[in-house]
């Protein structure tokens, strides 16, 4: 990885700007990062560099939801969340959802995106403790579908995960009987 000049203020991030400052009456040159520049009020709004995540999302949403030109046809284009009022277009810009309700309102837009990011749109991990007591019914059928999908994609490591999980769950069920 290439060595970059580091920010002389925070010493944490790569320097992206070279500024001239007055120090004891003499002009000195400093290399600083975007964050420090923003905090020192040295960067105008709109000139800030795009975050890694926003950039990723721009590409990810464009790939999954079509190019910007196609986005006129998007179902979610005019949608807004009824709870937090965030429009879907804002999510497309910065990649962040407005509230937990957004997941239901934008469900059809989010599912393909989640599949693209994670290879799946179905949670199989842990649940909050209160829900474990009343609704801990693992969906074995859904897991089997995921298993077949993983095999068809020749993703055998992932298939092995599902195989083990299904086996454990079936064993648990049998023990209960």
């Amino acid at each position: 990885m290439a060595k970059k000049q580091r920010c002389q203020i925070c010493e944490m991030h790569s320097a992206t700007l070279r500024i001239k400052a007055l120090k004891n009456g003499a002009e000195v040159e400093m290399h600083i990062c975007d964050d420090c520049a923003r905090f020192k009020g040295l960067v105008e709004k709109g000139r800030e560099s795009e975050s890694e995540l926003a950039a990723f999302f721009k590409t990810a949403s464009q790939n999954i939801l079509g190019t910007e030109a196609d986005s006129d046809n998007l179902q979610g284009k005019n949608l807004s969340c009824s709870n937090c009022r965030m429009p879907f277009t804002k999510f497309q810009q910065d990649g962040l959802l407005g509230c937990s309700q957004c997941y239901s309102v934008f469900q059809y837009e989010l599912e393909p995106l989640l599949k693209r990011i994670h290879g799946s749109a179905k949670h199989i991990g842990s649940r909050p403790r209160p829900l474990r007591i009343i609704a801990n019914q693992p969906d074995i059928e859904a897991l089997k579908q995921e298993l077949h999908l993983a095999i068809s994609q020749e993703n055998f490591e992932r298939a092995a995960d599902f195989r083990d999980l299904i086996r454990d769950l079936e064993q648990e069920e049998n023990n209960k009987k």
Partner: protein
Amino acid sequence: MKNSTKKRSEAAEKEAIPEGLMHYFNQVPVWLDRAAEGDNIILSTRIRLARNLTKLPLPGQARREQLKSVIQKVKKAVGEIKICREMALFSKDDLPPLYKNAFVERRIISPAFSEADLPGLVAIDPDEQLGIMVNEEDHLRIQAVQAGLSLHEAWRQISRLDDELSEHLDVAFTPQFGYLTSCPTNTGTGMRASILIHLPALSMADEIDKTIKKLAPNEIAVRGFYGEGTDVVGNIYQISNQLTLGRTETSLINRLEIVADKFSEMEQEARQRLLDQQKVEIEDRIFRSLAVMKSARLMSSHEFMKYISMLLLGVDLEILSGLNPLELKKLMIYTQPAHMQIMYKSSADAQARDILRAEIVRQKINSSS
């Protein structure tokens, strides 16, 4: 700044330091302390979970009073949970900027949390092994940190805290998508498990990119020292799971553990190759680093990390004797910019800091080697 004004502002800052805060700076984090017992390749393990409360807008969309209400709910929950009893709570507004930076350096909070101008709260246990950030990108980011490679212990600790919190808070969750997070890259388990790994031999052999490609497919991310968006310093890398949905936490942890072990093994092999094929060259680099650490008059933190990495390698390869790896790792914490300003009262001026850093390093290295 005139002297009188400077004194007044220093006094104001002193008065403004919240009670209990200095405890953290006067101790070596337990995860670092215990790391001295293990190997010096995998330095530490961390697992963080992203959680949100139902209905309330997420930090990026919420109004300030809504975020304050999240803080109140979390404070109440923490007050009722036994394992949180010894945690210290700091409101972000009460933390002077310097101390926020120092918390970032100690990895208690993230750079993004420190920088965002939003109401927030930090809760930390006395050992710095468990922590909560309120109103980072998600309402809650909870983390467990352990020394060395200890993913399963970290998972046990964090699940316990998560279970307790979910008894007291309405956590946003659906059976379809799992835990609902601000960013879809965290949806599902909301879990990011990571290890900090020191890979000097692979870096020297220019095999890092090759190794990453070989060992870290899409599901594993390799990042810099302070996490997302930061650079690699001192040959220390952060390796974490990339995916969070459609897999169980245990399977994600197991996969990361395999990759971490493999990185560690390849680093050991690269070290052996250096000893077998380039013994004089590696000894030269290590002793030159030692010489600089013993004599330099100006040292930036980046330069310090470069040399400390070589000294740690020298200790591991038994080329250097008399240096205690824990003392070296402590230097890594206490020579960071904000820590130097707090602990050694260094000025904020970068050059003055570099002079003082060189002095601290000289004293420490000369007295122990």
